[in-house]
């Protein structure tokens, strides 16, 4: 189609060898047809295109999020972490976590829970000696996070770079790790993490079923899968307004703020292509999760799906 041409030209520019490779590979594993927004492409092409999209938007990603959602995305992410309700000592894997929004919120939450715990402990130990109290301050300071840790995993180097810079800027250092990895093939061992989150990332994954299976694999027994993602709006009036806003306003914002119409056109189309709540719930159950449920936010513009590895 028309949309494919500029991308094919890009590919050619990258060198004839790569093109030839793509051509031969296309006939084999990457032969499966899939979608990129409203276009039809092969799986390999889709992965490449999405990589390019995020490579180009990385620096303006947060600014664009704020302007597109009028800042409401912050509330959505807060609700996600509140729903998670992590206790100190939780090991979180944030996939497609790019610029670190979920990771930072997790650290803040765990820190405040830990402080409350320490306060409660001190109230109970009213009859300690001065020395014992001083000792407990020492050991509590060294464990301000209570051994909680978050690993941010993203497939895109640019997004990770922006995330690391943000962490440095905001002063987050302890309990935070950055790993380059593909959600369809995570570089982690089995049964490692307490919680797996993927916020606004799973619709960019080419093989969602593989990502869900990987999520199941790396979670500990009893671990929780949480997915925050755009979903289908059932209310017809809201749906019409939402479509209007998505297709008319967002790509324009993308051009004006980030200088990139096509990426934001892709974003809006990919939201429409993502399966609705019930279908996604069935996919999560197929991967082996139990007690799968979803919560609609803003009448279905966004949904949080949750499942447990039991």
């Amino acid at each position, binding site marked *: 189609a028309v949309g494919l041409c500029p991308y094919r030209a890009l590919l050619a520019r990258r060198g004839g060898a790569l093109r030839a490779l793509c051509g031969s590979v296309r006939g084999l594993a990457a032969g499966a047809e899939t979608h990129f927004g409203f276009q039809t492409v092969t799986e390999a092409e889709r992965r490449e295109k999405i990589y390019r999209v995020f490579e180009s938007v990385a620096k303006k990603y947060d600014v664009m999020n704020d302007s597109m959602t009028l800042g409401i995305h912050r509330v959505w992410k807060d609700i996600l972490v509140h*729903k*998670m*309700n*992590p*206790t100190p*000592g*939780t090991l979180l894997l944030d996939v497609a976590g790019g610029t670190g929004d979920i990771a930072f919120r997790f650290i803040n939450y765990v820190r405040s829970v830990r402080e409350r715990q320490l306060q409660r402990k001190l109230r109970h130990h009213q009859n300690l000696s001065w020395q014992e109290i001083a000792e407990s301050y020492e050991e509590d300071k060294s464990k301000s996070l209570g051994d909680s840790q978050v690993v941010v995993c993203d497939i895109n180097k640019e997004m990770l770079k922006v995330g690391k810079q943000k962490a440095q800027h905001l002063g987050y250092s302890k309990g935070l790790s950055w790993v380059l990895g593909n959600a369809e093939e995570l570089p982690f061992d089995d049964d490692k993490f*307490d*919680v797996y989150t993927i916020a606004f990332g799973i619709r960019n994954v080419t093989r969602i079923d593989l990502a869900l*299976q990987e999520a*199941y694999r790396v*979670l*500990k*027994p*009893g*671990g*929780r899968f949480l997915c925050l993602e755009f979903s289908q709006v059932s209310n017809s009036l809201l749906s019409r307004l939402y479509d209007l806003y998505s297709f008319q306003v967002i790509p324009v914002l993308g051009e004006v703020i980030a200088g990139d119409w096509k990426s934001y056109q892709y974003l809006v189309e990919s939201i429409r292509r993502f399966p609705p709540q019930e279908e996604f719930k*069935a996919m999560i*159950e*197929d*991967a*082996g999760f*139990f*007690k799968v449920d979803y919560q609609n936010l803003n009448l279905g513009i966004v949904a949080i799906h*949750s499942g*447990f*590895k*039991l």
Partner: protein
Amino acid sequence: VRCQPSPPRRALQASAVLRRVSDEQKEPLASSSQQQFDAHPTNHQPEQEPQGPRPSYTGQGGQESEDYESEEQLQHRILTAALEFVPEHGWTAEAIAEGAKTLGLSAAAAGMFHSDGSELILHFVSQCNTKLSELLEQEQKLVQLGEAEKKPTDQFLRDAVQARLRMLIPYIEKWPQALSILLLPHNIPSSLNLLASMIDDIWHYAGDQSTDFNWYTRRAVLTGIYNTTELVMMQDSSPDFEDTWRFLENRVADAMNMGNTANQVQSTGEAVVQGLMGAAVTVSN
């Protein structure tokens, strides 16, 4: 690794933890059947038939196959394990998280439950009620076998309420918190239900067979006694809660007297009316 035929909805993978539980449950079965092998040759050898005879668990939607425990049972096990952490953490999601950890699950499993700890409290109350029923059942059996005397009603009620309230003693410090959570609007239907069925049980074993309005008055009265005694127990600091049991004794005695008083009032009322009628007749003559 055994290949189990999973139900069609769980096409790809069977669960990790639920199967493990059924393995644990097989072991006591295995050991007991080996011990009794000579006496009961019809017992299945565990090695030959790993899917031994097992009561089928009624899952909610019939999704779980008969050999696995259901999600509900796993939830019950987590809540039971969480009870031992209640004195320290209160009736909270933290206690549930600690409970999950003792079962080898991640603390994130506490996310299956409401974050205010409601399910933990309701589970505990339901467990206590079950224990009380069993206790009363055993006592009744002893009476039927003639090994014990049948208690008079007021003593029976006193003992039953005391036994039930004693189950709260390990958690007494955090029980006021639990009571307030049980009063939250979304918990009231369940907590009232549990309370009503417990009171019903006590009256049943007390031998109440009334089919008239007494059925309601008896239950209302006992509910009142139970609730007030529970509240008194919250603030009681006497050794072994003596004050509470004395309060209970007085309330039960009051309730018994109330029955007599009602009859007395009625007969007095009739007598007064007759006297008045007689006076009226005398005056008219």
